[in-house]
């Protein structure tokens, strides 16, 4: 199956061993999108790296840049002004919504529900318009700079976001109306791609894929970053660890993200959006690991600095990479048609896996 297959969300090749319709063995072949980003950034200045980070997970560019700039700030000991922290939280959560909406649309499309795709992309469009107005680009936003934001967000955008948060829960209810009680959807997802909590932890699953198995663990709570320590939100978990549970977890996460956006809007402090940082960024020699909760899971950055303006080594811990590694466990023994459902439920992005 693959590498050119519409349901693989990129260029993923799965070697399947079949007995009729039943999957006996599976091996994922990746690397078709390998661009060597970890090598490229070793020759780039610290402030030139965020545009590359955008392109790791292109559906959640804002989250990627957030993880990177926070890692560098931690290493340099820069304190980011509170307004920038809140704006970062707000934008990252909007990005989480956008990413989850892509997941919902394409996942449902793979399983055969066309309408949800159009509905989901309608709302995503509104989010992308916000990004375009704030950062000048829709997808690869280059949203944050080391020390804060490039500039304050333009007037009027916050009202738009507020309006969006008003109607978004209704839209989520709309999607749920289409899918949650739908007999076809339930038959295609309940009991498909089950993974137990122990296995999920052992495989290093993170994000909604782990929470679907009933582990209440979220990096936003475990090690709060940006302004998440001030936010009040719940971490939804599933019970059985199947595709349907992960679907419910993500749907609830969208509502919680909406809540976080609301709180960030209400409490947004005034002030500068960028801390004073030198023009040429030279972090002190040392190493730092910083992980954030990206829409797909835990996204970590391990930066080794030798005191120069270029990193000695930058390692990205891509959540999709570890999530995809568990695919064999999840699909062996199921039917071929369920492979598509499992790829969808893992919410992988091949740009992030291959880097």
């Amino acid at each position, binding site marked *: 199956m693959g590498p050119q297959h519409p349901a693989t969300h990129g260029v993923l090749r799965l070697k399947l061993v079949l007995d009729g319709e039943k999957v006996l063995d599976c091996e994922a072949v*990746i*690397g078709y999108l*390998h661009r*060597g980003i*970890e*090598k*490229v950034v*070793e*020759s*780039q200045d610290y402030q030139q790296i965020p545009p590359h980070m955008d392109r790791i997970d292109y559906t959640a560019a804002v989250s990627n840049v957030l993880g990177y700039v926070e890692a560098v700030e*931690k*290493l340099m*000991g820069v304190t980011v002004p509170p307004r920038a922290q809140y704006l970062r939280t707000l934008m990252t959560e909007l990005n989480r919504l956008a990413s989850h909406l892509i997941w919902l649309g394409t996942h449902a499309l793979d399983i055969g529900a066309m309408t949800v795709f159009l509905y989901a992309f309608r709302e995503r469009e509104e989010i992308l318009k916000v990004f375009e107005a704030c950062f000048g680009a829709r997808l690869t936003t280059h949203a944050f700079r080391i020390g804060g934001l490039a500039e304050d967000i333009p007037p009027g955008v916050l009202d738009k976001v507020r309006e969006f948060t008003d109607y978004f829960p209704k839209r989520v209810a709309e999607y749920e109306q289409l899918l949650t009680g739908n007999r076809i959807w339930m038959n295609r997802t309940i009991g498909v791609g089950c993974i137990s909590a122990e*296995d999920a*932890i*052992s*495989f*290093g699953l993170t994000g909604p894929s782990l929470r679907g198995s009933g*582990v209440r*663990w979220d990096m936003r709570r*475990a*090690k709060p970053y940006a302004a998440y320590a001030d936010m009040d939100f719940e971490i939804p978990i599933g019970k059985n660890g199947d595709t349907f549970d992960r679907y419910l977890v993500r749907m609830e996460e969208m509502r919680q993200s909406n809540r976080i956006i609301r709180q960030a809007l209400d409490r947004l402090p005034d002030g500068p959006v960028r801390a*004073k*940082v*030198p*023009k*040429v960024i*030279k972090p*002190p*020699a*040392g*190493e*730092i*690991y910083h*992980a954030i909760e990206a829409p797909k899971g*835990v996204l*970590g950055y*391990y930066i*080794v600095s*030798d005191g*120069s*303006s*270029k990193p*000695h*080594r930058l*390692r990205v*811990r891509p959540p999709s*990479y*570890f999530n995809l*590694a*568990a695919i064999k*466990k999840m699909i062996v023994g199921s039917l071929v048609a369920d492979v598509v459902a499992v790829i969808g439920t893992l919410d992988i992005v091949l740009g992030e896996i*291959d*880097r």
Partner: protein
Amino acid sequence: MPEEKSPRPETPASPPADKKPKPPEKEPFSKAETLAFLQSALPDSFSEAYTFLGQDFLLVNKASLPELAELLKEDPSQDYALLEDITAVDYPQNEKRFELIYILFSLTRQDRLFLKLAVADGETAPSMTGLWESANWAEREIYDMFGIRFDEHPDLKRILLPEDWHGHPLRKEYGLAQQDEEWIARNLELIKPQSHLGVPSNKEIEHLDVSQPKS
């Protein structure tokens, strides 16, 4: 990136020397209980323990790494159930040039522990696949990118690059635009890298040798 046409300006906006924050330094290991526990259970398993910027590092000896990792994972007082990541760093100037970094996470106490293992070129490292499934692909990637082999790995082969590729890209001596020309000629009928539109071609970029020590 093209060659630098002029020397980069010195940091103009850097704060004066007296205001400059002190660079972070190694501090004594912050997890006293873990340290005491390991010293009593496996006294010779690690050579150094320190904390850097709130991160707890243990420099592990190769022979005792599997035992130590198992202890950290299984013992209820430690409970590092999640292997968040394995990565490697290349220090060409060191005697043992590679440093493997194992990032462990405890889901119950929400803290991290970093295990470091120095590996020389050509030396193998013990595989963690028996303890954590997530080590499987992480180790394959390290093998692919650095050429470090792992003992008892069930399926050690390249993961991101083609299986018959030569060279390990994240080693410092591997050029930025270096490619396995032979493989490309064999498998892809690509035009040779050429200068187009006056932009430096891959060949010309190669002088950006990142293996050179940076000033």
